């Protein structure tokens, strides 16, 4: 059990034993980089095909199933198509920025994976403030979206870029704030330690943050903010294809477009990995007796489940309008994250005085009360209607 759990760690150490001591840090980093790129590159290819198949199933059709067995070579075909397409740069474009934008989007996102713990003893670098690092490298994507939209010299691109920046800035606030309860109650900014804090079992069930009221609420808020942050439906306004063609991607084609595509999915993977780490117990098993399953398998199982939720949402909900999107962020999500921080405080300080169930109900009640109240406030003018008939 232990050997299978630590198989990748052992493998890395074995490989490193062939490297001279002076170069071991570099070798270690390189091995981690190769592993991350291989795993998440594959995950990207797999997600694109599974997303299309899943959406197809939701829509009563089988999805792509022609290339390779069950269509699973479709990503290869897409890649070949993308790479062989003509790379068109508009005449009036700002050539340098137009060229740089996909790189600026894609490269920093890879860095975010460095701090995620994929399994027991399996994070590429151990940082004291790893969650700050995570959000810091994520901030480059706003610049990339702006560069893409502005440099394309296209009106749709510009509108898309403006939407994109405003949306990302607005949702970065709740994204960070929704992690605050976790940081408060774990007492650390280190993702490995946050996972360790969730490693216990009570009554055989994992002590994940999501099983507490503030954790469940935080998870919900985090997922909503993460959807917006990664420009996924229903918050895909920057690309809103029925309104502004393809938003900031309008003038991109070929390899650059593929890079944007890759960057967006990697961003999604990164926040999903963070959600798993913060709320779903990271690589911990849900039930005590399931500890025999390797930890990294648990991480990727949870990761896949969350990705499926994103795909499910994409197949279900229509898109918001831009002002509604920002209202939703500032008048609903941000206040709720603040309430959630307070709830987490109540949860922490009431631990000595109240029974677990009472504590749970009180905290959940406070949050749900605010949820309902703010929701009502947000949808004041809207209601299902009744209709009259003429004979």
């Amino acid at each position: 059990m232990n050997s299978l759990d630590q198989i990748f760690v052992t493998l890395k150490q074995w490989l490193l034993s062939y490297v001279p001591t002076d170069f071991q840090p570099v070798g270690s980093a390189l091995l981690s980089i190769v592993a991350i790129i291989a795993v998440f590159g594959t995950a990207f290819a797999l997600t694109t095909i599974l997303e299309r198949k899943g959406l197809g199933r939701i829509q009563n059709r089988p999805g792509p199933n022609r290339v390779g067995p069950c269509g699973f070579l479709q990503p290869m075909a897409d890649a070949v198509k993308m790479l062989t397409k003509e790379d068109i740069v508009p005449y009036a474009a700002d050539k340098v920025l137009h060229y740089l934008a996909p790189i600026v989007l894609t490269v920093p996102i890879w860095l975010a994976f460095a701090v995620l713990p994929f399994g027991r003893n399996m994070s590429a670098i151990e940082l004291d403030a790893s969650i700050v690092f995570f959000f810091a490298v994520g901030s480059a994507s706003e610049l990339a979206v702006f560069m893409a939209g502005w440099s394309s010299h296209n009106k749709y691109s510009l509108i898309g870029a403006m939407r994109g920046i405003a949306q990302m800035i607005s949702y970065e606030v709740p994204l960070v704030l929704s992690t605050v309860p976790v940081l408060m109650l774990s007492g650390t900014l280190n993702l490995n330690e946050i996972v360790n804090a969730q490693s216990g079992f009570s009554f055989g069930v994992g002590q994940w943050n999501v099983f507490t009221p503030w954790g469940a609420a935080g998870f919900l808020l985090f997922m909503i903010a993460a959807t917006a942050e990664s420009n996924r439906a229903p918050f895909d306004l920057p690309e809103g294809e029925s309104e502004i063609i393809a938003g900031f991607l309008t003038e991109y084609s070929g390899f650059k477009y593929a890079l944007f595509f890759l960057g967006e999915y990697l961003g999604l993977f990164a926040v999903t990995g963070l959600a798993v780490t913060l709320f779903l117990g990271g690589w911990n098993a849900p039930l005590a007796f399931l500890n025999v399953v390797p930890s990294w398998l648990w991480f990727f199982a949870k990761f896949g489940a969350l990705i499926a939720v994103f795909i499910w949402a994409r197949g279900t909900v229509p898109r918001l309008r831009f002002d509604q999107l920002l209202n939703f962020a500032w008048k609903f999500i941000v206040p709720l994250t603040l309430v959630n921080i307070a709830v987490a405080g109540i949860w922490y300080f009431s631990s000595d005085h109240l029974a677990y169930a009472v504590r749970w109900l009180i905290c959940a009640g406070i949050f749900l009360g605010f949820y309902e109240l703010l929701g009502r406030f947000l949808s004041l003018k809207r209601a299902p209607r009744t209709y009259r008939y003429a004979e």
Partner: protein
Amino acid sequence: MPNKITFCLTVVFTLSAAVAAIRLRNPVHCALSAALAFAGLAVAFLGLDAEFIAFAQILVYVGAISILSIFAVLLTRGTEVEPTAAVFSRSWITGIAITLGTAAAILVPIFSSSILYKIAPAVASAPVQMIGTELMTHYLLPMEVMGLLLTSALIGAVVIAMSDRPEKKDDSSHPSVTRYPSAESKPATKRDLTTV
């Protein structure tokens, strides 16, 4: 030695980005170069074992301030290149002169001071835990003041930038349209078209 190479690369990167940020013609390019320079500065912080500060620097400067300045540029039609600005103009000479003057004024004392060639202690770190504890104990008052300042800055920025235009009252109110005569005044057409 690898340390020094990294440091030199960082310096070259940061300074050239900084020069680009203040000298490029298009203000959007300037703002983007500034983001690069700030990122280079953060790398230099990392070299000084100040991880938290480095990440905070990126988060605030790259993620917020450069985006804000881009917005400011766009909102003020700043992308219009100054019509007279040549790539190399008189202000370049002024700029170089000022830079060299200031740099000399700062660097000459630094490099003439021998005490500054001291070597750093082997280990120095400020774990996040410690920073948090300090903020909540020794630096509590400054932190509270800082919170107040940030709040007032937020409100102030909104108030200053707020439009004088009255907000639209209600999105369901429809501008009255006068293009069509109203239904009542419409003359009825009497012609019976169904006669064969």
